[in-house]
């Protein structure tokens, strides 16, 4: 077995037994990136020297008898997360040369836990997209089939973990941007409860929805990373206090008496039959293990997508007003006045999807349309949240597909924004409700992974992870590897 193919937990075991050094692990990963990243194009920036320095420091710390939750573990960051001194582009021309003067809180927490930071992964510009094709730099490929998208917007992070180019990665999820690429790439993606992980130092897209989450090779690693990342942060006024998970309690393959709800609205038109079949089989597996299952209705599900595509762009139009060419980013040359500086800098620096969403959000917030669009969407959000509140009175978790299809082809949806938006139809409701959800692999269709989504109530991560872990222990989907080596 190659070191790069280890999970975080497996690597920690070897490091703690001193059978492997952090430097060996880091070098194995860096070699792997050199070998396969030409195919996957997962990374925007790799920092081999700094990574090796951090690995040496981890080895030195361990030699002194110290340990850390992630000491010596190589991890990649989505490139909308600020890392001191390293370009943070958000996949946008407008931030091409932006170098953050500080670390995001999640980066500081990873450093404190001893992680080795590998570099920055590709994303849809400002995390707006479902395929990573909206990156201003290049498209990332799905390691399972290089002609397919990896999903998005955290497509680079998902492809990197899938292709063994990182032991784990961080993504951000506003309407499914961790879960959907995890599903498309056959890895694990956790969107924590809104507020559980600090957003400080992560480029804001839609502030009432954005949440950082881990993308990992298995459920154990997702739990390990969540524990390392969830901590109250005074720098983020939406950060909440949350208990650390008791991993011994969470990671046990028992679902006896767990009440599973199956929301009917997630199995209707739009969901591919192969995806539905795989998820139904997963539900049966859990029933065989002792879980109790029943159907449930989330009657406002169909309104989640239209509500989201008013609320998220509205928040984005306000958040992205800061990219005006003055304090950072691209500035248009030779403009006549400040108005032209703003308009032309933004015209030159921002890509189509970002412009489209700024326009949409500005429209929804503008005089005469605010009540009919923005306020209406906020009211719909209340109903969507209430659907979940009612469901969680009867059920511990809800099971559904993560995405209606497997990974689609590069270019297949890039000309039709509305079709692209529909690929997030099963992940957006949880984001609007602020609850937690995980995507784990549950099968394949034509050698492309299918994702099972397990949703839980706010701060219900322990149960969500426990159900996910039990399913994972009973199956071997998470052990499948993409055929990259054969092609190289």
């Amino acid at each position: 077995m190659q070191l790069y193919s280890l999970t975080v937990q497996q690597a920690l075991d070897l490091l703690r037994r001193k059978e492997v050094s952090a430097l060996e692990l880091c070098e194995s990963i860096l070699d792997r990136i050199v070998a396969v990243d030409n195919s996957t194009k997962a990374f925007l920036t790799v920092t081999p020297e700094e990574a090796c320095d951090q690995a040496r420091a981890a080895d030195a710390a361990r030699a002194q008898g110290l340990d850390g939750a992630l000491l010596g573990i190589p991890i990649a960051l989505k490139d909308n997360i600020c890392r001191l001194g390293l370009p943070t582009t958000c996949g946008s021309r407008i931030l091409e040369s932006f170098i953050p003067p500080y670390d995001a809180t999640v980066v500081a927490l990873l450093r404190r836990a001893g992680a080795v930071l590998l570099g920055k992964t590709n994303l849809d510009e400002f995390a707006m997209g479902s395929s990573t094709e909206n990156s201003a730099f290049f498209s990332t490929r799905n390691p399972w089939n290089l002609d397919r998208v990896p999903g998005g917007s955290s497509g680079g992070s998902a492809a990197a973990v899938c292709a063994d180019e990182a032991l784990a990665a961080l993504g951000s999820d506003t309407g499914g941007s961790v879960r959907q690429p995890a599903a498309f790439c056959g890895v694990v993606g956790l969107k924590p409860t809104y507020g559980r992980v600090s957003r400080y130092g992560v480029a804001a897209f839609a502030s009432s929805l954005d949440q950082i989450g881990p993308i990992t090779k298995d459920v154990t690693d997702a739990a390990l990373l969540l524990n390392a990342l969830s901590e109250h942060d005074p720098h983020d006024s939406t950060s909440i206090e949350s208990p650390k998970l008791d991993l011994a309690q969470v990671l046990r393959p028992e679902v006896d008496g767990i009440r599973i709800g199956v929301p009917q609205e997630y199995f209707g038109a739009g969901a591919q039959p192969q995806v539905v079949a795989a998820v139904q089989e997963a539900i049966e597996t859990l029933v065989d293990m002792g879980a109790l299952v029943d159907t449930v209705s989330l009657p406002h599900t169909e309104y989640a997508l239209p509500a989201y595509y008013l609320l998220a762009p509205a928040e984005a139009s306000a958040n992205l007003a800061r990219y005006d060419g003055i304090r950072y980013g691209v500035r248009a040359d030779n403009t006549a006045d400040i108005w032209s500086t703003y308009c032309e800098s933004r015209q030159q620096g921002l890509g189509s999807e970002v412009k489209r969403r700024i326009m949409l959000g500005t429209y929804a917030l503008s005089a005469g349309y605010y009540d009919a669009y923005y306020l209406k969407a906020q009211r719909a959000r209340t109903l969507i949240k209430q659907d979940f509140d009612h469901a969680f009175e009867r059920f511990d978790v809800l099971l559904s597909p993560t995405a209606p299809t497997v990974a689609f082809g590069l270019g297949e949806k890039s000309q039709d924004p509305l079709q692209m938006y529909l690929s997030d139809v099963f992940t957006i409701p949880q984001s609007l409700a602020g609850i937690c959800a995980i995507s784990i692999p549950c099968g394949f269709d034509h050698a492309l992974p299918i994702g099972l989504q397990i949703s839980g109530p706010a701060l219900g991560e322990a149960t969500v992870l426990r159900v996910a872990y039990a399913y994972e222990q009973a199956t071997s989907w998470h052990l499948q590897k993409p055929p990259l080596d054969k092609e190289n």
Partner: protein
Amino acid sequence: MLTPEEVGHIAGLARLGLSPEEIQTFGKQLSAILDYAHTLARLDTEQVAPTATVLALENVLAPDRAEPSLSQEDALANSPQVQDGQFRVTAIME
């Protein structure tokens, strides 16, 4: 269908320059998305309060205390144009 004038007006509010082609394309695409968004009109929300945040938090306060922050040099480091330790901008008033 949004007219080119309406698209131009929204772009102005957003301080976003658009090419004539973009105005055409966005007119069509935004109209399609807004038509779709209009499905919300079917919902009776007369008695439903809006949700701006899912958190139960209210008025998160911090002590008003000076803390170390970015140096002037660091704060200016990413600006495309700097002069005399300040952000340089185009004239705002005649």
